[in-house]
């Protein structure tokens, strides 16, 4: 396969520009709210499509060169409809057009084309980019010859993790040929330039300041600079992965006079594992945390596959999920169960507070305008009995109607400690304190669990909406504790510790 040349070294500093399919394209006169998708399409790269403009369908998926976990650079698929193009200043983007041409198809394109993976073709370039990201994932085992018979549901067939396509919707095919195409992928060829590019560092983030028609997009270089800017301009809209802000811009037409990008601040991208705490930098993406923790926090390991889609997790940050303070964010119920703390930084210094005290009302928090979420701390040791239950219409890539995080300790058949976090049942994520009280000090038996489940079913004030009825939400709270109990019973242990559960530190 030959492909357009991809620079093998970080790009040379220039005026604001993005490297697209190997060409440096200037960001002249680009408005702060302009999405990467609209910008690409205006430049004639119309392969990426707008299907929903809110990161749900993946028709706009493109590849971005990002810092990798296993290689220097990873080709990371993101929703171009959500990412402001200003956020990609100095970065490298590859679109479906850049991967191959109709006379010289990329291996991913080839497999999708010959197996009937496209019908109307509108979602296809997005599938191509999401699948190409998986094709180039360094950890992917690839034997190349295990072509699917179409009769198994192994999510890691041929090394391909089908969650890579969880953020792409196809209305035509029914997905089977797309799955077969994914399972037919071998390893990248020796002369594959995209594979080679992974060995060099990704483009470094660089300070950006774009101002058009009175609206600014600013990416400061350091935390101190960011905090100074927030102090000076309290009206600033802080944006990390833009998976929430992008929806506001596209669907609700919101425009901010100043957007401050924090997703590449080095101070917000540290991950520390110590004896008594795991600290997660607020600007780490869910994918990065998922890969780097690698199962060390079992409750989070259960959460990650259920958190939106791979495309969203590639951009969305842990800090952002707390920062938006949505009552239906997926991370807070789990983090509440983990007794997590939030570290807030401001020019006045840092303060640490329990996540349970962070939320004050519907999308309201204690965070001051000049404060930033710097990190999330998870105290160690972890409770051994954990579960994350998300109730939604669709198994993956859906917003929860109810989410429950459990972290329990059981000693000698008695519950000694209980933390239960709930989402979707109140104006904020909450702890199920009454249920915790109903469990602690009582035996871990069906009888007492049933009693506690009845209490759990009365927690919060669920409402009726298009996702679920209030009565279903309440029922699901109670059922989730029964399900947890039953699942442990079914495994033959009162309290079971999965292999990866122990934190080695």
């Amino acid at each position, binding site marked *: 396969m030959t492909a357009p040349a991809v620079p093998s070294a970080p790009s040379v500093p220039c005026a604001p520009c993005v490297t697209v399919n190997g060409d440096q394209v200037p960001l002249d006169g680009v*408005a702060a709210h302009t999405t990467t998708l609209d910008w690409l*399409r205006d430049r004639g790269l*119309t392969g990426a*499509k*707008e*299907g929903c403009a*809110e990161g*749900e*369908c993946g028709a706009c998926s493109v590849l971005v060169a990002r810092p990798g976990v296993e290689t220097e650079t990873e080709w990371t698929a993101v929703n171009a409809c959500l990412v402001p193009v200003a956020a990609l200043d100095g970065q490298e983007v590859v*679109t*479906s*057009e850049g991967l*191959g*041409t*109709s*006379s010289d*198809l990329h291996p991913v394109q*080839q497999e*999708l084309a*010959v*197996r*009937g*993976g*496209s*019908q*109307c*073709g*509108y*979602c*296809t370039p997005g599938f*191509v980019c999401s699948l190409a990201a998986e094709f180039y994932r360094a950890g992917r085992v690839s034997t190349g010859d295990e072509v699917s018979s*179409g*009769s*198994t549901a192994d999510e890691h067939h041929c090394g391909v993790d089908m969650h890579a396509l969880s953020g792409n*919707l196809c*209305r*035509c*095919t*029914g*997905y*089977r040929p797309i*799955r077969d195409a994914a399972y037919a992928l071998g390893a990248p060829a020796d002369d594959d330039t995209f594979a080679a590019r992974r060995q060099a560092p990704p483009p470094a983030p660089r300070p950006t300041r774009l101002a058009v028609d009175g609206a600014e997009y600013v990416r400061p270089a350091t935390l101190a600079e960011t905090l100074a800017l927030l102090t000076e301009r309290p009206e600033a809209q802080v944006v990390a992965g833009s998976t929430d802000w992008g929806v506001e811009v596209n*669907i609700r037409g919101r425009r901010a006079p100043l957007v401050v990008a924090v997703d590449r601040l080095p101070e917000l991208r540290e991950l520390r594992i110590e004896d008594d705490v795991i600290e997660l930098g607020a600007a780490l993406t869910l994918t990065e945390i998922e890969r780097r923790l690698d199962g060390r926090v079992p409750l989070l390991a259960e959460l990650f596959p259920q958190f939106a889609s791979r495309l969203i997790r590639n951009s969305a940050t842990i800090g952002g999920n707390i920062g938006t303070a949505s009552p239906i964010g997926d991370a807070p119920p789990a983090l509440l169960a983990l007794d997590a703390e939030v570290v807030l930084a401001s020019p006045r210094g840092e303060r640490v507070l329990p996540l349970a005290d962070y939320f004050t009302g519907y999308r309201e928090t204690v965070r001051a305008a000049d404060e930033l979420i710097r990190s999330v701390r998870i105290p160690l040791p972890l409770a051994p009995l954990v579960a994350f*239950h998300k*109730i*939604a*219409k*669709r*198994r993956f890539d859906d917003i929860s109607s109810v989410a429950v995080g459990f972290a329990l300790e059981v000693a000698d058949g008695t519950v000694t400690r209980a933390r239960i976090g709930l989402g979707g049942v109140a104006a904020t994520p909450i702890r199920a304190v009454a249920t915790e009280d109903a469990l602690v000090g009582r035996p871990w038996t069906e009888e007492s669990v049933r009693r506690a489940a009845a209490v759990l079913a009365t927690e919060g004030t669920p409402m009726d*909406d*298009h*996702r*679920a*009825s209030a*009565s*279903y939400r309440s*029922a699901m709270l109670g*059922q989730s504790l029964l*399900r947890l109990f*039953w699942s442990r019973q079914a495994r033959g242990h009162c309290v079971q510790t999965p292999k990866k559960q122990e934190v080695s530190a």
Partner: protein
Amino acid sequence: MSALSERPENPTVGIPLPHESAALHVTGEALYTDDLVGRLTGVLHAWPVQAPHAHARITALRTEPAHDVPGVVRVLTADDVPGINDAGVKHDEPLFPSEVMFHGHAVCWVLGETQEAARLGAAAVEVDYEPLPALVTVPEAIAAESFQGTPRNLARGDAAAALEKAAHVFEGEFEFAGQEHFYLETHVSLALVDEGGQVLVHSSTQHPSETQEIVAHVLGVPSHEVTVQCLRMGGAFGGKEMQPHGYAAIAALGATLTGRPVRLRLNRTQDITMSGKRHGFHSTWRVGFDDDGHILALDATLTADGGWSLDLSEPVLARALCHIDNAYWVPDIRVDGRVARTNKTSQTAFRGFGGPQGMLVMEDILGRCAPLLGIDPLELRRRNFYQQGQTTPYGQPVRQADRLAACWDQVAASGEVAQRRAEIAEFNRQHPHTKRGLAMTPVKFGISFNLTAFNQAGALVHVYKDGSVLINHGGTEMGQGLHTKMLQVAATALGLPLSRVRLAPTRTDKVPNTSATAASSGADLNGAAIKNACEQIRERLAQVAGGLLGVSPRDVRIEDGVVHGLSPASGSVGWNELVNTAYHQRVQLWASGFYRTDGLHWDANAMQGEPFKYFANGVAAAEVEVDGFTGAYTLRRVDIVHDVGDSLSPLIDIGQIEGGFVQGAGWLTLEDLRWDTSDGPNRGRLATQAASTYKLPSFSEMPEDFRVKLLEKAHEEGAVYGSKAVGEPPLMLAFSVREALREAAAAFGPAGTSVDLASPATPEAVYWALDAARTPRATEPAAGDTAAEPAMAGGPRGSEEATTWSG
């Protein structure tokens, strides 16, 4: 064998080929209407002003403030319409309304230099509304007697008398939801003005000819001044049969008034709040069985939720009535049908076109009644299949009744259904909180437009001097692979390799007066028209070749581009040479083709006749697993045998079957249209108006094990190269999923539990169904069909579906 259906030796039809545009799809090189915008200069962008009321009179419209927004060029209102202010063919869809008929109705449109300018301009337009009472649900419309169009009645025999005599009679009420098309490409039109005021509209439309007609009547010009082109669509599923016209007209109006190209592309929110959907239905029914479970009679009333205007609601209703029997012989039957007028989007065509709704009523009846009759639901269905020689309630013989049985028995055998059901029973015994269910359901779907006139098509085939071939036809490509099949048909009919044939985009100035690409008929109609055109050319070339080879023209054969006589001794000549010779002999090298489906007749008032050329048949077996704690489920395995005749293009057909099945499963289990039915300020607003709230099937909803087979030896005598239509019928195979969920929910209760299941059967609906099944009732039916009240306990949707049984 008919001339139409007969295949030559080594035909190109029947070869499994990927989509003709697959390489363009995967690279992003394939062009869709909105991809053309960047290739033009000076394009204006249109944005609607959408009303925030479900029903209101517009008392004032002030557009001036929009002109203060930088970049706003013009605001289009009713005053700008030179022709007829209507977007439909029934003249009940004002393009610019004076009365708002649904929440989100576009009142006027703003044109801006950028989309941002148009959006801000639309926000600046001031509209005064006088809110009026709104009907949002079908029961509300029934109570208010708010109907539209002509009510229809389908009857045979004496249903009332037969019900009197039946050993077992059940009655019920069932209301079920519609479905959003959610084609990935939203509605889009791009209009340009040519010299002399000629208008060219690029439109994502399944029905270019009708789009052309509507644009012409809005502009007040004859049709020959408007050309509509459809490159391809990013999905349509029926949603672009009637609905694109108004948007095309707005773009065309803007272009003629400003002299600049106008792009109208709806974003997802606009598309989902403004465009029509699959009709939800309300039904009441009484059904009678004999002691062996044979259906004796059905008396039903179907009320379709038509939304604010008629659109295609009448033919949708007619097809629903014609498919309530599905695959089953119902000797005495009476079905009343009517279309409710509600203050919602104007519901429209959607894959199956009412057929799924009619069949769902019957499949729901059988699923609910089987336990009450004490008969295995598989047996109950199989026992009631049409037999050879029987006719439908509208008087059409079911000529291939044996194919239904063949599909059924093949699925039962290859799907190892008996063995798996035993395994499921064992699994269910061992798992108190997880249950599995397996169900089989059939589909018998009539192919042809009910309206006989639509069953015609045209094509234009050019052979150029160099021997290359360009084909045009009246059908549109929406992903269904029509163009792939048409290339195969042309290559087969001319005896050429596929590489010699190219296909040009659908345009109304190439093939006029076309029917919508709909009713699954695209390949049947256009394929026959292309074949007709190719045969005219082939005939003329045979004359020339006969002269060259010294054989009778009747003995000339063209295979893979080589022209020869019957005997090898006569030698051969290449296609290119033959074409060149023919040109110099002044032989016409192009032809227009035409086709009309023979043998159809339909009395729409009496609801009697033979509206369908044939039936497409299929059977599916689905196995699900349901979690008793949440109602969440997985689709473990699906086996399908489907009758596509002798397939024109097997890879395409299997893709249609799989895709249709998953789309049907989405309708029945996941996709949840929720309208605000409260009396609050948002009454009538669609609450699920985004991909984040309206969930389509994703990878996780695909059957884990998906086995699709085409019925073999299925030659269809009356259709092009022996094939059958495939677009719609497989959608209805998804009833098997819904019935399997019912089986699994029932397994939470005692044997013989009859389960009432809402549609869509979301995890919540399944949870309430299984919770009702496992919760002991105050009054258990003593025998299967004695009086009981199996209403769902506590389920918010269940209360809409109270069912009573009488014995």
